[in-house]
């Protein structure tokens, strides 16, 4: 899975579940401040991403550093590089 595919899948999954405008889905978008997701949304976002990429996140602490949409792309890329997702 290349980086462009990751971006497309993340954006599609989040746009559908959280009714976000595609135009708002830029790498610098802050998840809370710009996308307006609250703490409950962020818990749901993990579930949405697990389903979209068919993986189960074992270490929830690894999410602590995620602030922006770009951080999510990077995080999913790292899971791909580690062989967690294909």
């Amino acid at each position, binding site marked *: 899975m290349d980086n462009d595919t990751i971006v497309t899948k993340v954006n599609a999954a989040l746009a559908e579940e959280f009714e976000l405008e595609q135009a708002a889905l830029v790498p610098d978008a802050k998840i809370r401040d710009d996308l307006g997701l*609250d703490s409950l949304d962020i818990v749901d976002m993990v579930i949405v991403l697990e389903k979209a990429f068919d993986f189960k996140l074992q270490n929830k602490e690894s999410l602590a550093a995620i602030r922006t949409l770009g951080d999510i792309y990077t995080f999913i890329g790292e899971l791909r590089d580690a062989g967690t997702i294909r």
Partner: protein
Amino acid sequence: MLFWLHPWLPVSLRNDDLAVQHPASILVCNHQSFLDIYLLGAQQQSNLCLVTKHWPFHLLFFFAPAMRSAGYIDAENLPAEEVEAVCLQRLREGATLVIFPEGHRTRTGALGRFHVGAFHLAMQSGRPVLPLLVHNSFNVFPPHGKLFHPMRIRMEFLQAVYPRDFAATPLPHRAMMRYVRQLYATQLAAEAYS
């Protein structure tokens, strides 16, 4: 307050019996104006517990003591898990939680995006969500307007929505939230059309 304002601000309420039939439920309401909180006084359910942002406790110095003594919940003053625990406790004690799922007043008159907290609580508690629809309070005091526009405000309880009906869906609280928001959107669109 509604009594004194009645000559200029008549309020009608449909399906009022639904509030009495569903004690200890989660009452959600669209948020068009600061009047919406006072409009809650028009309905018959008396054991209400508002779940609000922090600023009313801070800035409404006249009402804040009453809000605290009534056990209203400051949703921004505690971690989300603790807010949820307090809300569930209030429900067990028989209170009806009042939540504005848009999180703030509309600035345009259009229905805003819903937050999921109220529906998460419904799933956790098994209690129904009781939607209260407010028509027209936006036009009485439009944002940034300086004038009060006397007109009739219509309120209506919609049928209760039960969490069990969404239990089989993935992320059931989100499915419930979308369903209830669509109820509001449909009703408000029908009102605009008529």
